[in-house]
């Protein structure tokens, strides 16, 4: 079985082994459990919000999209090629009769193989716990229109998160080939660019992955209670995500071709 992986996607398999062999996966898995912890806290006390609100605003839009998802992906994406550059093992891959595009693509695939399940599993587990919590949720204000449906949140969360993982992973796969300390730069990006500046300068949203992730999420959720200022339409957002990913992978391949490997 492993033999089959090695033969079909050697670089991807190598990348996954690299993650499993290092500490990166442990950190990422630990981080994917963090939303579950928040869900557990909600289990203790459901008075703070409706289950739907909690899932949408606290877990996804408060925690996952702006902070956890980008950092989890960053750790993996900057390590996938960055560690090979730093450890000077990259020649073992580039000195093969194999296109650079394939190396870049397989590396991205390796990141996704680890990151997507980690992010989605965290969201799923959180969803499950919040569902349990919802069973003893007592609506405080017995508003007739209060929407308690949780199931309709799950799909949009998973779709938007997946799009976010793909876009972030491909962008930072390329960045790690250009900048030596890509992880630090990425963290500054997440905390300064996406969180701080994005809050004040609305124009920045156009060049913010988080913005498109939320756009997709809000669009799929289709609930007037949850909106996003200047949201981009679903189709446009998806196109942006796809184009950004493809361009990043192509750039990474171009960079691999041009790079001088010491």
């Amino acid at each position, binding site marked *: 079985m492993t033999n089959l992986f090695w033969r079909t996607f050697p670089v991807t398999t190598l990348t996954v082994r690299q993650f499993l062999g290092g500490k990166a996966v442990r950190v990422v898995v630990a981080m994917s459990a963090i939303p579950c*912890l928040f869900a557990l806290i909600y289990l203790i006390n459901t008075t703070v919000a409706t289950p739907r609100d909690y899932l949408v605003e606290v877990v996804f839009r408060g925690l996952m999209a702006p902070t956890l998802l980008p950092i989890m992906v960053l750790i993996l994406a900057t390590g996938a090629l960055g560690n090979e550059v730093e450890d000077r093992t990259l020649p073992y891959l580039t000195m093969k009769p194999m296109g650079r595009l394939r190396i870049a693509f397989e590396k991205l695939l390796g990141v996704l193989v680890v990151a997507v399940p980690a992010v989605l599993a965290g969201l799923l587990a959180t969803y499950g716990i919040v569902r349990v919590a919802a069973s003893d949720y007592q609506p405080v204000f017995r508003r007739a229109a209060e929407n308690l449906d949780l199931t309709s949140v799950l799909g949009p969360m998973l779709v938007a998160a997946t799009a976010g993982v793909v876009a972030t992973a491909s962008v930072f796969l390329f960045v790690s080939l250009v900048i030596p300390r890509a*992880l630090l730069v990425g*963290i500054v990006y997440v*905390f300064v660019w996406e969180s701080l500046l994005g809050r004040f300068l609305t124009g920045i949203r156009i060049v913010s992955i988080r913005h498109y992730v939320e756009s997709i999420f809000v669009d799929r959720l289709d609930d007037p209670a949850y909106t996003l200022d200047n949201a981009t339409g679903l189709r446009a957002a998806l196109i942006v995500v796809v184009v950004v990913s493809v361009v990043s992978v192509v750039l990474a391949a171009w960079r691999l071709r041009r790079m001088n490997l010491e």
Partner: protein
Amino acid sequence: MALSEAPIGQPARYGEVFDRGYKHYDGPQLGRGAAAWALVRYSAKRALGIKKSWTAKIIPILLYVAAAFPVILVVGITAFAPNAEVWDYADFFIFTFVIEGLFVATIAPEMVCGDRRENVLPLYFSRAITRLDYLLAKLVATALLTLTISFIPAFLLWLFLQLLADAPLSAMGDNLDDLARVAVAGGLIALYLGAIGLMISSFTGRKSVAVAVIVVAFLITQALGVALFEAVDRGSAYHDYLVFLSAGQTTIGLVGALWPDSDIDLSELALWTYVAVMLVVVAICCLVMLWRYVPDE
């Protein structure tokens, strides 16, 4: 040296060839304590980026500026508008906590990650120190540096506020208790944050990973701690102890316990509880680090 032997009246002709060869060292060898102290000084200097390029210095400098800013602000306002409502010490410590956290995230990885990654550890451990000496030296260095952010600005604030009083000397005498509180808060916070930062850094040789994990750990535990603190029924027996889930809450609680008059209303725990728990956390961090530095046997 031979000059005086020259006969008077004649010009001294002096020439000597010196042995530039290796000489044995016959000075003192000061032992373990001195070695550990040397490590403290060396680590502290390098973590601040002294003798390194300006890129290594820029973040510490920015953080110092950020820490000095509120001091200037508070002192300035008090000077011109003595009756204005400005921050008290508690508010000050809560504001500077963020800077302290970032500062520790910057310097703690500098302290230990390089030694691991660049393989300097075998050299250190072949010297006249033990592993525990090494760790304590790193902890002291981190804590001393953090003290420059957690204590000195607050101390300056205290000093300037007394100098603004009509009778500075007597004001100082009257407010010695505040100074003592500032010292306790600054010292404890430095030791506590430093130990946590070092403990995390001891797990990796990659500085950027350590920085990332420290920052994320501070943020996430803070969010979790606050959420849990809010979620749990205030009346329950263990509610107050939930502040210890995050470094930020712990610090706020400590400051609240030190200045009971401030409007911090986090928990009812006594001061000694904070001191004890923070010291226990420091001890646990040390144990974890000691385990991380056990030779691969």
